[in-house]
């Protein structure tokens, strides 16, 4: 007993040391930056809006992690690839030809809707296939096993799409109707960012209503609560799980279109980082909760866009934008270590651990 206590003290000591040093580091960086005052207020607002737009995409992707974790208690590593597959396919088959023929800029609304539909359908198709082939047969296996297949599915899908469409970065055509800026509450905002934020809000509200109000949504919640009891109530569990994957993937497919609109390029590896970040967002908001994923996504987006200049600029870190992802991953690691239940969420992670 004596020895065990000592060990716990050692661990607690380390954890407290990490806590304190992170707080000191962040506070020091922030104060130094604010004293230095390198950016005007407008720049900070721009950082925030950019972060909101970025965070919207994270929120949409995070929905997929949260939904799947809710029903299966499994981290679907391949979710970032669902995101990538949709927009890659839509870019190559729809956006490219439409832009080449000039249709895209003559009829932007129809074109964008077409791209959106194709992207979502492809993502859903890939998700359902992946679930059927790689996850469903292993549902009763130990938790490590589906995680490993998910990892395999992720790599496999990345390199399948690399083989299909090539390894180079593909340009996504610029939509001229969205290229301008609009003024909103006294600040200039890029139109694409506005579209991204509005589209995300519509999608998230729609999804929330679907899960909360429809019969299928009820089935999903029932399966998330208890698969066996749900099956006894006459719910087709396999089908419901497939629908859950499809729902998450459709959101990812939509997020892919928004991503392409903002960054105007697609790539076979583009799913990895947003996927991992969206997972961070899902954990931040409390994995398993839909509003949590939305809040977590937005928070992460702003954090990622405002954080590096705020924390690192004052410390005279050269080329701090390179460390944007380090900040995100550090946040991920810290949240998982210190608050695996998320900022607002309940403690789901331990339930089935």
């Amino acid at each position: 007993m004596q020895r065990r206590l000592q060990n716990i003290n050692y661990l607690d000591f380390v954890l407290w040391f990490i806590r304190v040093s992170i707080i000191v580091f962040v506070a020091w960086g922030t104060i130094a930056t604010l004293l230095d005052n390198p950016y005007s207020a407008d720049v900070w607002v721009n950082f925030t809006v950019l972060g909101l737009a970025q965070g919207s995409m994270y929120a949409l992707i995070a929905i997929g992690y949260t939904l799947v974790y809710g029903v299966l208690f499994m981290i679907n590593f391949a979710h970032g690839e669902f995101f990538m597959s949709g927009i890659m396919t839509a870019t190559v088959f729809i956006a490219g030809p439409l832009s080449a023929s000039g249709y895209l800029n003559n009829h932007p609304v129809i074109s964008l809707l077409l791209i959106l539909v194709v992207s979502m359908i492809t993502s859903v198709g890939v998700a359902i296939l992946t679930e059927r082939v790689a996850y469903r047969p292993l549902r009763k296996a130990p938790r490590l096993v589906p995680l490993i297949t998910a990892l395999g599915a992720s790599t496999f899908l990345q390199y399948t799409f690399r083989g299909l469409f090539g390894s180079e970065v593909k340009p996504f055509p610029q939509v001229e109707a969205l290229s301008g800026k609009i003024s909103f509450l006294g600040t200039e905002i890029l139109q694409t960012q506005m579209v991204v934020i509005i589209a995300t809000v519509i999608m998230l509200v729609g999804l929330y209503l679907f899960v909360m109000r429809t019969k299928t949504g009820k089935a999903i919640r029932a399966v998330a609560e208890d698969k066996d009891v749900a099956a006894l109530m006459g719910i087709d569990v396999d089908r419901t799980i497939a629908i859950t994957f499809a729902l998450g993937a459709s959101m990812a497919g939509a997020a892919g279109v928004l991503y392409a609109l903002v960054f105007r390029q697609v790539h076979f590896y583009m799913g990895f980082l947003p996927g991992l970040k969206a997972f961070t967002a899902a954990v931040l908001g409390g994995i398993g909760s839909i509003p949590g994923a939305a809040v977590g996504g937005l928070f992460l987006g702003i954090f990622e866009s405002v954080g590096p200049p705020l924390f690192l600029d004052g410390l005279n870190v050269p080329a701090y934008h390179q460390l944007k992802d380090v900040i995100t991953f550090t946040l991920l690691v810290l949240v998982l270590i210190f608050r695996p239940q998320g900022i607002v969420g309940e403690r789901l992670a331990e339930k089935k651990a």
Partner: protein
Amino acid sequence: MSNEKKFTLRNAINQGLLAGLITTLISTVGMVELFSQRQLIAGVMTMAQLFIFLIPALISFQTARKAPKNSILLFSAVTSFFASLPVLVLILLASTFGLRRFLINVSPSLIETLTFGQGPLVGSLILVLATTAVGVAAAFVDQMDEKIRKPILAGLMWTILVGTFSEILQERLRAFFGIGFTNLIIKSKALQPVAALIFLVVVTAISYFWQQRGDSIKKGLASQSATQRRNMTYAQRIAFFVLLLILPLLLGSYLSEVTNNVGIYVLMGLGLNIVVGFAGLLDLGYVAFFAIGAYVMAILTSEGFLGVAQTSFWLALPVSVITAVIAGILLGTPVLRMRGDYLAIVTLGFGEIIRIMANSDLLKPYIGGAQGVLQIPKPSFFGTSLIQPGQLYYVVLAGVLLAWFVSTRLSNSRLGRQWMAMREDEDVAEAMGINLVNTKLLAFAIGAGFSGLSGAIFASKLTSIFPHSFNLLISINVLSLIIVGGMGSLPGVVVGSLILVGLPELLREFAEFRPWMYGALLIVMMLAKPEGFWPSAIQKRELHADEESPPVEEVAAAD
């Protein structure tokens, strides 16, 4: 599970279409075309054609087993016929719409390969007929008596293997037997048809007689006395050791280089095997310790402007290992309370953080940023610089033997058993009095140490290192080879490295498709053979206890 149900013609069609879709997929991602230049048997068969027919043949082999006894041929014919249809659709689409605009690998030369250079119409017909014929042939083979079937399959497998690696065999044969003799067997990188036929017959015959005589030999071995048997194992061990020592002489420079790469992965695999296989802690940031070992070695020994000490390899080696061990403890401490998937994600995060930091301008003055560290000297041994792969081989071998020794000793030690108890159930292990903190930290530390050792050798082998060599794919690669070999099994690590690192290096066309294959392998292994190709004794025993159970429960038992 589908075994119990009645296997209908519809199932056969589904199976066939599945096989066809897989073949179409490997065609559209570019794998078939890539191999269309590699002759398996000169003038008779290319590797691309092997790929086209392999999956229909395998699936129709499967169908023949499940089909009702009186209509096996019909079933396999249907299966393989339907297997050719998706490929046919691909050919038609490609030759009418020009899919190349969208799918980069659906090129005219792919279509030429798929239609055997006979034009879309005739070629398609040949494809359908040939696929069906191959399927029926596979069913025939399946129906043969086991005593004949096994030798034939062995003969086919070995012939295909020899054909696949003919380029390397040619080089080796020339070194030993001269050009004249080699040209009879392998000429311009392709196995000659006559030689292939003779080889097929000889291997089949040998394996047939081996099967006949094998039982009596085994009986003879079993009837030996204990001393005799012990002497036998000693003799085997000594022979194996001598073989290991003279291997570079037999292999030549290129194959030694491949062996070195395999050895580096074996080292990493042995380390990760302790963390994942023994202790059950899924670490996806394992490459971080590899990177740390490599960078410490690089900075300590480099003769370029980033080098700080220009020490010798042998002095820097323990420093690299110790640094990696310390890093393992430091990164392991905060995650002590995490389990399963969250642990995996956190370690993945650590790995990425370290890679991005190595790439950033922040650390550029110390470790070179994206430009990496250059001019790392190769190790030297009593004044001789080990420049040749055949010389470096001994450094790698020493590392592997050391790691192997530590692993075997640990696996049966008190610590090893603690790890395995922890792997099975952490709470129960703790209740049994196992100190989880120390046990976990030791696993992380030892695993990291092996990885650091591997990284250090890697750095001085390559003489320059760059951050992009330390990406997530390496971690996935090492994880895959452990899983393919069998989690927790030491020989499994070697088998896994040979399959996953050795084979693709021998077939250089594979380079582009390595990650693709790893991904597919991870899924297929988990679905079909979760215990790996060379499972550890414990896992074997556990699986043996309930052989009749479906795969899913085998997983449960194996883990």
